[in-house]
């Protein structure tokens, strides 16, 4: 039997294994009596699970795998990533989950949640209402929602979630986030020490491991990439930032890098959004979690109060992209927008215009997540890369 224990050849190899066989470790842990809780999207408060010794497991789709079963339950105009997640679940690929938590991130996830619950009947099912607004009352509301959710999880886990345990979980997740930022920073060099595809695989692997095991994996990847023989110089390769939502498989990054560019930064749900900002370790921990997830996560599903003019609004919403671009010496950006992801689709023209206004060439791609047309995309990306060179 292939287990995650005997695939510890090195950090990157293990990350690759786990990113391909995502249920591997979760199944082992479950056989040892641990409870595995699946969650969608970036808004599930991971710290709660960890503090209660529940194993969070991010639900992802399967790029390239045809939708077979989901058609009977979810319309084709739903986000194809969401459809892929459901399809995998209906094919029993998520049969190791003891429960699922759906934060109200967007319309697509909201609709998926009730369908998942009805047909897959998980032992634990919870729909967490996440406000879209960011007024002071929104944070207060979200804190109340989180408190109700915490109580529900306590009942499920059969133990109390103390502030002390929550703080320890916050510190552990913050440590992992800091390590991921350290790993990501290895892309700042003229010749990045880690490719975009490798980093994505590592990210995916971290999302299917318990937090305490994440630490070791990320540390081992850092150590490995720092110590491996230097690559040929990448100085002439355009440095690309990828903007989008759920890219959970390395094929797209690989294709961009095979096209002659280096992927040096991202703004993805499966990328920097997960680790760029941590949870405040002082004060009330539930309040700190509410602040981190509602305010610091940069997903277009959250409305940012406009400071006044359009120019100021755009700066308020997207200036962090400029900071990313400057810090990572980015030469161009690719917007990889999954069709039917409404909030991302609405933002795309503004993001495109903003990035162009700061001097970055932009390639705007709308795709269906499956990468079925990757050869067509390759042609477009190659032309884009050549244009930057």
């Amino acid at each position, binding site marked *: 039997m292939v287990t995650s224990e005997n695939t510890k050849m090195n950090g990157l190899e293990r990350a690759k294994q786990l990113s391909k066989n995502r249920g591997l470790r979760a199944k082992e842990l479950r056989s040892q009596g641990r409870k595995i809780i699946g969650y969608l999207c970036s808004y599930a408060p991971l710290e709660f699970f960890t503090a209660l010794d529940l194993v969070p497991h991010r639900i992802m789709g399967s790029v390239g795998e045809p939708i077979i079963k989901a058609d009977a339950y979810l*319309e084709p105009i*739903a986000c194809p990533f969401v459809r892929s997640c459901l399809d995998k679940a209906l094919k029993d690929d998520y049969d190791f989950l003891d429960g699922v938590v759906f934060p109200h991130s967007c319309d697509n996830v909201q609709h998926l949640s009730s369908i998942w619950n009805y047909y897959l009947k998980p032992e634990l099912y919870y729909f967490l209402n996440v406000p879209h607004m960011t007024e002071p*009352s929104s944070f207060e*509301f979200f804190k109340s929602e989180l408190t109700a959710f915490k109580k529900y999880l306590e009942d499920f886990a059969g133990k109390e979630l103390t502030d002390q345990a929550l703080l320890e979980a916050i510190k552990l997740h913050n440590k992992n986030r800091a390590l991921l930022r350290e790993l990501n920073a290895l892309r700042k060099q003229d010749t990045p020490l880690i490719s975009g595809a490798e980093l994505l695989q590592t990210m995916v692997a971290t999302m299917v491991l318990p937090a305490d095991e994440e630490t070791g994996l990320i540390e081992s990847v850092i150590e490995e990439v720092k110590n491996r023989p230097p690559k040929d110089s990448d100085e002439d390769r355009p440095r690309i930032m990828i903007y989008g939502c759920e890219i959970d498989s390395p094929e797209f990054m690989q294709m961009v890098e095979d096209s002659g560019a280096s992927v040096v930064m991202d703004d993805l749900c499966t990328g920097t959004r997960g680790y760029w900002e941590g949870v405040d370790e002082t004060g009330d921990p539930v309040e700190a979690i509410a602040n981190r997830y509602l305010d610091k996560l940069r997903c277009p599903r959250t409305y940012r109060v406009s400071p006044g003019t359009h120019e100021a609004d755009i700066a308020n919403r997207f200036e962090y992209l400029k900071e990313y671009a400057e810090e990572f010496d980015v030469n161009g950006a690719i917007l990889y927008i999954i069709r039917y992801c409404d909030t991302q*689709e609405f933002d795309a023209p503004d993001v495109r215009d903003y990035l162009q206004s700061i001097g970055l060439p932009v390639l705007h791609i709308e795709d269906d997540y499956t990468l079925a047309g990757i050869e067509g995309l390759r042609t477009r990306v190659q032309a884009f890369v050549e244009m930057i060179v």
Partner: protein
Amino acid sequence: MAEQQKTKTTATKSTKTAGKVRPIVKKMYLRAQEAAAEGRPIAYGMVASQYEEILRAMDITPIWTENYAALTAAKQVAEPYITKAEAEGFSNVLCKYAMVGIGFDAIRAETGKIPEGAPDGGMAQPTMLLGSSAVCDPRFKWYQTLGRYMDTPIHCIDVVYPNSNHFTLEMRDYYVKYQTEQFKELVNFLEKTTGTKMDWERLDHIMDIADETIQVWWDAYQLRKATPCPMPSQDHFSCMVPAYYLLGEQEALDFYRELHDELKERVDNKVGAVENEKYRLLWGGGLPPWHTLSIFNYFESLGAVFTIETSYHPPEPLEPMGKDVHPLKRLSSRVVDRAMKAQARAKEGCGDSRVQQILDLLKEYNNVGMMMHQARSCRAMSLGQIHFKNMVQEHIKVPTMFMESDIVDVRDYSEAQTKMQVDAFVDAVESYAQSLN
């Protein structure tokens, strides 16, 4: 897929009262144009955001932008706006209400005037944008993106529904509190933007009118349970206009009183929407195909009448709250309590409030078939329909048709194909109806 040879695409109405809606719609846009000429505040707004009465109490003229998109669809002039939005870089799969609105404002920003040929004189330039998260994400994302074309003050609010399966009575308090705070912040924004203070007594009075309007509207629709059905769905998709767009105005209340009287008279005299009613159907989901409401008349030609619909259904009236309750809390409680009431009913039945509504309407209105509209650009109202149908079938094997089209974009519609589908569906309904006898 668009058909080349179209004749009449709007529906022929059955009731006299429904025929009075078109002038009301014209007047809505005229009012906004007059407000613009006189320099009075005008708000772009999202229907059913629960802030309608607040706007009226502060003399802010609303423009319901989704309604305008539907109007362009009904007039078959939506395409240039959609094309413009596409040219701006917005995806063709986005909500077509939003695409029409974005295209309209992009053209206005470019030309400095209302687009030529815009129906009913076009949407006047707003002085504020009021988005909301009620129903779907595009309803705040749309206005956020309009900053590209106008530096207009914007405020968006959350409208939170207790839709968790774990919702408890204890949670009601903080839901109502949050909703109240959201309305309070909206009022603060409106006061600041208009320089006018809210008159709370006036708001209370407007809400009284609104509550009465909802009650009369609700009562009127109970009359549609009669056989033959006195009013079909194509009339409903007009008659919902005063309740959604003029809520709190005396004119809306008077409209439903008149509708009630007309339906009563029809029921008393056994006047049906179709001459020989053979099949009673439920409009079970999705917003209507505004571009081709005449499809309802095709159903009628086969003896089928849509007796009731889940879309824009009148909200079930609630027990009035005491006079000592602050109007904003009254508004907030309305939002939360309506959802809780529906959930409570579902708990006694199938478990899902949306499916329970379908099951109830099938039964109460004696329907033998159900149609759902899968509108390509409307995820909020189209997703879940397959699931709803699956759940309904576990309780009752009623024939169901999924019509595939769009709310606005006629390019997603094939009349010939739809009519063939309708023919087959009505055959299935016929067999089903016979099996019941």
